[in-house]
């Protein structure tokens, strides 16, 4: 029986087995941020331990950082202290640090791939659930807790239970204005928040093959919301092209050798899965969440459910609770619901290709005066690339706030948040109660749906809007990396 890409990387990194189902794996890359790491470093200090491989460990500030001008002081004292603790820990334990002022600062799951810290075939861990994002490049990437992080710091290895395998197949061609974000939202809507628990989701099928590396990151990122342990896509030329020439990716002879190895990381045709799910994306419409978990989701032209339509008592109760929290009436149309804010950001949908989608919709249009609309690029590199292309002018002319990078409204640990009872359409991945601030009402959607909503001031169907072509955006100062990975595919090349 053939092996899947996940099994190949797994087998390559297993060091030992303990009991029936615990495996010790070597960790090739450890990324860490300011929120989940301080207690691990403190315990290391208390026990007199060091980080075994500082050269494989990278520290990044993202969750707490303000997204306003970096010349301004960090006002929140607790955030400042956590950021400073990370700087101190990175120095004491000799780790490379991308701090608040680094040109390479950004959300850890955006920064890893774009700097070539994430490459195919490696094991990568980070104290953050959305570490699954890195699986889009063909890495075995798992989110871990603080105790596990401490174990990795001290031993560069991790004990894992072997997850079951699930194939998630996307076939067909996306209708216009419908994106991979809509596909993964639809998948979670069908399978539920626990549908993938205990499994690694391997995304495959024609539609996944056609996706860009960045689009694959969006679906791998959100597999977590379906309960997956992690997600992966077998690596291909698109992935190689995405990381070629990035600062930390292999170069010269190493690059050639790496590619030969990566070519072997294909899922074999007779590989088996414990579970399968297939979606033909050709009939999909843009999706948006109406409730307080990502499975509470409908098509943008549908009505929110009536609790009475659920047979299961606990689902009925959950729907009632969610509708009341969200301030929605049972059975109402979701389209047309007025919103207070639109947030384009997060490790799900704030990469350059996401920003280009937004620019194509809002070019020549204005954000509704009733809406606070902000764009928070996934990293400072994404921001610079967008500015090199001139996208920021499109955003500023339309009335968007153009900010610096960080997790921002996705988790509301800085000042970017929704007020009590305020409603926002966010391109992030979690719509839990209070996620974007106490009493916040979050609707998750694609960058296009969010952009259309910003223009109308109400939840809007993006399919009613024409999109500017790439040439109409009159992009300036492109670069070989941008041409190869972002622009050429968009021009249909």
């Amino acid at each position, binding site marked *: 029986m053939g092996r899947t890409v996940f099994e190949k990387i797994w087998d390559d*990194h297993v*060091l*030992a087995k*303990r009991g*029936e*189902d*615990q495996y*010790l794996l*070597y960790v090739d890359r450890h990324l860490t941020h300011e*929120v*989940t790491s*301080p*207690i691990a470093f*403190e315990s290391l200090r208390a*026990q007199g*331990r060091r980080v075994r491989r500082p*050269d*494989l460990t990278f520290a990044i500030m993202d*969750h*707490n950082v303000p997204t306003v001008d970096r010349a301004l002081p960090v006002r*929140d004292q*607790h955030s400042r*202290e956590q950021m400073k603790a990370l700087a101190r820990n990175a120095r004491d334990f000799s780790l*490379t640090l991308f701090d608040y*002022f*680094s040109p390479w600062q950004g959300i850890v799951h955006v920064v890893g791939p774009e700097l*070539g810290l994430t*490459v195919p075939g490696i094991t990568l861990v980070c104290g*953050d*659930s959305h570490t699954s994002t890195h699986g889009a490049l063909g890495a075995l990437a798992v989110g*871990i*807790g603080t*105790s*596990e992080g401490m*174990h990795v710091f*001290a*031993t560069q*290895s991790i*004990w894992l239970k072997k997850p079951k395998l699930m194939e998630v197949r996307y076939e067909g061609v996306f209708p216009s204005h419908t994106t991979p974000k809509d596909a993964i939202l639809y998948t979670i809507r069908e399978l*539920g928040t*626990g549908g993938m*628990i*205990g499994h690694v989701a391997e995304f495959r099928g024609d539609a996944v093959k056609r996706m860009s590396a960045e689009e694959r990151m969006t679906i791998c990122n959100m597999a977590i919301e379906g*309960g997956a342990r992690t997600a992966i896509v077998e690596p291909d030329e698109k992935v190689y092209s995405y990381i070629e020439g990035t*600062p*930390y*990716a*292999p170069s010269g002879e*190493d690059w050639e*050798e*790496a590619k030969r190895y990566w070519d072997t990381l294909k899922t074999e045709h007779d590989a088996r899965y414990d579970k399968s799910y297939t979606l033909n994306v050709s009939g999909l419409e843009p999706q948006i969440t109406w409730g307080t*978990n990502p*499975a509470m989701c409908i098509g943008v032209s549908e009505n929110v459910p009536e609790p009475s339509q659920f047979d299961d008592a606990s689902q009925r109760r*959950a729907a009632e609770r969610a509708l009341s929290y969200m301030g929605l009436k049972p059975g109402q149309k979701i389209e047309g619901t007025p919103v207070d804010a639109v947030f384009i950001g997060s490790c799900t949908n704030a990469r350059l290709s996401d920003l280009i989608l937004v620019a194509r919709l809002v070019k020549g249009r204005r954000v509704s005066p009733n809406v606070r609309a902000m764009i928070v690029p996934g990293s400072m590199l994404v921001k610079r690339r967008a500015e090199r292309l001139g996208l920021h002018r499109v955003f500023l002319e339309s009335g968007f706030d153009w900010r610096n990078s960080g997790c921002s409204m996705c988790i509301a*640990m800085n000042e970017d948040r929704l007020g009590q009872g305020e409603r926002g359409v966010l391109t992030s991945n*979690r719509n*839990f*109660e*209070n*996620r974007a601030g106490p009493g916040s009402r979050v609707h998750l959607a694609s960058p296009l749906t969010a952009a259309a909503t910003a223009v109308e001031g109400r939840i809007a169907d993006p399919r009613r809007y024409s999109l500017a072509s790439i040439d109409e955006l009159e992009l300036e100062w492109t670069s070989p990396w941008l041409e190869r990975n972002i622009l050429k595919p968009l021009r249909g090349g």
Partner: protein
Amino acid sequence: MPEPVKKIRGKAAPLEIDDVDTDQIIPAQFLKVLTRKGLGAYLFYRWRFDEEGRPKEGFVLDRPEFRDATILVAGRNFGIGSSRENAVWALMDYGIRCVIASSFGDIFYGNSVKNGLLCIRLEDERVKSLRAEAAKGGLFLDIDVEAEKITMPSGEVIKFSLEPAVKKWLLEGLDEIEATIRGYDEKIREYENRMSHFKMPRKDVLHTE
């Protein structure tokens, strides 16, 4: 390093909500801490306190009959979402020793084991009936990790099962880092010696502050 967990006897409280994510167990605002002590005060914060921090009425753990509960009977998919270990620390600091549910978020489950918080999976129907019992108030359960059984006040026994590695961990309260270094350092070194150069990040990168 957690204390060994062998037997738990305590009062059960029902939490009749499915899909309790770790954001609800402890909101992000309380992640800005540099120590794990005292997090129990913020457990289920938004369900227990209003925006000004005043206690709200009615959350199950604040009702007099459940104030001293140490066992939580939840629903499906308990602990999904964010990887924050603070969720486990908050539960334990509050005094919860065991959570019973029909399924758990993977990372939350792993974090619980590491800290000695017992998570018991039972079938949906079992969880429901146990929750209904607990809701009456005053349900004391005797939980035996070694024997993998819960004894009800009536003497009725509910069996559960733990993966062998999890069970061993709970019973022994292992110092895992020490155990890995002592038992597997050689294996780790072997991998490092054969690790392909191209798997490592480049070292000649110019990265200045």
